[in-house]
Every structure is written in C-alpha cells, then in structure tokens.
C-alpha cells in the first residue's frame, strides 16, 4: 500500500479507533469506581444523538471554526501517514488545536472564554514537547517521514527514554485526563460547567468529540513512532500508557493551570531536553 492510501484510511478508521477507545475508557473508569458502566459503543450513540439534536448558534463563527478544527486534526493524521515531514506535522497539529480555542473564545461567554484561555495555556504547555519529540525522532533515525522512521534500524524508544517519559505526562493533556483536564471538564468532572464546550450544542459538540477521536488516534500514531521497531509493540505501549492515564484520571483531582504549565515545561525541559542534549553530544 502506498502512503497516500494510509492517509485516506486514517480519515475513516481513526474516528472508529478513537470512539472505541473512549468507550473502553468509560467502561474501565466505571469499573474502577465499582460501577458497570455504559455499553462499549456508547460514544457512538452519543455522537449520533448530538447530530440529531438542534444546534444553537451563539454566533456565526463557532461552527465554521469547529469544522476547521476537525478538518485540520484529520489533515494532521493524513499528512503524517502519507509521508509529510514530521516536524511540520507538529505545527499543523498545534494549528488544529488552536481552532478549538478560537471557536470557544469567540463565544464571548464567561465559561467558554475561561475554557478557551485554559486550553491556550495547555497548548502552550504541551506544544514545545511535540516539536522537541519530532526533532529528536528525526535526529535519532535520520529519517523525516513516518515510513522512514518505521523503516529505520535505530530503536527510537531506547535512545529516547526521557522523551518517552515526558510523552506520558504530556499525553495527559492531550487525552484530556485529570489532573491536566483543566479546559474541557470531561463529563464526570464538572468544573467550569463544561469548560470550552459550554456553549456548543448539538452537532457542534459532535465535531469536538470527533476531532478528539482523531487526536487520540494521532497520539497512538506518535507512540508507534517511538516504538518504531514493531507496530504491534507500539500499539501495546499505547494501550499500557492509556490504562495508566485512566488510572491517574480516576485518582487525582484537577490541578491549577499554573501547576500544569510549570510541571509540563519542567518535564519537557529536563526529560526531553536532557535527552536531546545527550543525543547531540554523543552523536559527535
């Protein structure tokens, strides 16, 4: 199969993957709390219902911005799998996330705005890591594309233990898990009403969910990059990491944005930064 085919497959399969992951997540979380939890396909039922409901337009820019959010999330994945430069992907990924911030910020309501600002903060917290991770992967393998990294004989995770460690921390932000889920307040948490999705209803909320599923699939793809010697191993590593995230999600309360920013930056600087520095010094 050519890389372009993988890109097209991503558009259709990533939501399925992301939705199932959310379903498993809700069931596992329920079990951790001594409940049975919803059916596995619950996220898809929710999505279907949201699409059938009325969408209240609080202003005309929200919906187009959300569509942009979904579009660029999907495009990030397509470009990633179809062989675009990895460092460039990090920038497109950030752009995609920014569209959600803009949609929520444009509503001009107290809760949405606070959510948008917090999302901007977590974006600021996580973005350096992704740029650094992509640069480090390119440095280790000498490749610049997804296929190139997978074909490389270098074992990325072995050479980038610090980056892997920081990935676990930063993924907490991107998977919207407590203690770092300060901007959306996913359903069991109700701080800030619903954070940046407060004023989004019907299909608009469905777009946010859909984009998040693409995002989860992207993170999984990033994990495979780190475990580049075997795709199943990468998937297994993602599964373990996700299980850890769910455990942390259910056992912590949310942090203040200051702590999120400081700790993520510190981890990026110390773990990934130190790792990258060592890499450069040793590769002389």
């Amino acid at each position, binding site marked *: 199969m050519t890389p372009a085919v993988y890109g097209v497959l991503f558009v259709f399969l990533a939501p399925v993957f992301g939705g199932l992951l959310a379903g498993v997540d809700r069931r596992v979380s329920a079990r951790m709390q001594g409940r049975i939890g919803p059916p596995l396909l619950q996220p898809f*039922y*929710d999505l*279907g*219902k949201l699409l*059938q409901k009325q969408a*209240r337009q609080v202003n005309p820019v929200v919906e187009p911005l959300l569509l942009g959010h979904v579009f660029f999330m999907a495009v990030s994945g397509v470009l990633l799998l179809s062989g675009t430069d990895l460092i460039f992907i990090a920038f497109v990924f950030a752009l995609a996330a920014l569209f959600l911030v803009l949609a929520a910020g444009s509503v001009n309501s107290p809760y949405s705005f606070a959510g948008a600002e917090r999302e901007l903060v977590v974006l600021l917290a996580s973005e350096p890591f992704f740029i650094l991770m992509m640069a480090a992967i390119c440095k280790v393998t000498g490749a610049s594309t997804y296929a190139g990294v997978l074909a490389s004989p270098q074992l990325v995770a072995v050479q980038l233990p610090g980056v892997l460690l920081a990935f676990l921390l930063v993924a907490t932000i991107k998977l919207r898990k407590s203690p770092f889920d300060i901007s959306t307040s996913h359903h069991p948490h109700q701080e800030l009403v619903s954070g940046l999705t407060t*004023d989004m*209803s019907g299909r608009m909320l469905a777009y946010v969910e859909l984009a998040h599923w693409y995002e989860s699939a992207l993170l999984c793809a990033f994990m495979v990059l780190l475990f580049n010697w075997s795709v199943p191993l990468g998937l297994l590593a993602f599964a373990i990491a996700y299980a850890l995230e769910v455990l942390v999600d259910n056992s912590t309360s949310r942090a203040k944005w200051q702590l999120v920013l400081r700790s993520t930056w510190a981890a990026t600087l110390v773990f990934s930064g130190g790792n990258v520095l060592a890499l450069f010094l040793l590769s002389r």
Partner: protein
Amino acid sequence: MSFFSRSPWILHYDGSSCNGCDIEVLACLTPLYDVERFGVLNTGNPKHADILLVTGSVNERNIEIVENLYRQMPDPKVVVAVGACACSGGIFARAYNIQGGIDKVIPVDVYVPGCAARPESIIDGVVQGIAALEAKRKKTA
C-alpha cells in the same frame, strides 16, 4: 434509528427543595443504581442536555432561572419534575414565596411522585422522559 433512547443527557436543577430529592437523584449515579449503564450522563449544562430534571418548587426568585435554563436547551427536550415539591409545591406549597410546581413556569412532561422520590422511580421517570423525547423528535423530524 434514533439515538435519543440510548443517550439521554440530563440537567439537574434544584429549585426550592429540601435537598432530599437531590440526594436521591445523585444516588442514581452511584454504583448501586449506575444510570450510566443506560447512557445517562449528568451534564450540568443546559446546552448539552436532553432532559431537565427539576427538584423542588419554583419561587419568585428562580422563575427566571428555570425559564432561562429551559430556553437554552436545544430541541428536542423534555422536563421531568421529581418529587412532590416539583410536581405541586409539596409541603412548601403554602409558603409565602412559593409559586407552586414547575409546571407553573415551563411545560412538564413527566411527574415523579414521592417525598422524597425514590431512585427507582426517578429512573422510571427518566425512562418515560425518553419516550416523550422520542415522540417530540418524531413530531419535529
């Protein structure tokens, strides 16, 4: 196929209640009853909700709030009045500031009796609410 029956999201509003019914509503979420099994989520946000669960009666000060929350819910939507207070004013009905049941302000689709309403009957009320939701969707679709 409709997804409403599989994914009813709830907004819980507490009017002039004694908090008895509210505790029972929250009990529905606990491991014992676990309404999330049926896809029920307590959203806390009218813009995400399908079913407005109201406990307690309306008084002079919260009429505006109840109306506002109801208006901000996207269609289709139903209202479930939980407990005697929400249905008719209950034991507070004669109090100086109480207007009466929720149906004084917004249309109520399901009345759940009890003081306090038991979790089982609340869940039953939600199930009837889902049926009403389906009916409304069919009408608009």
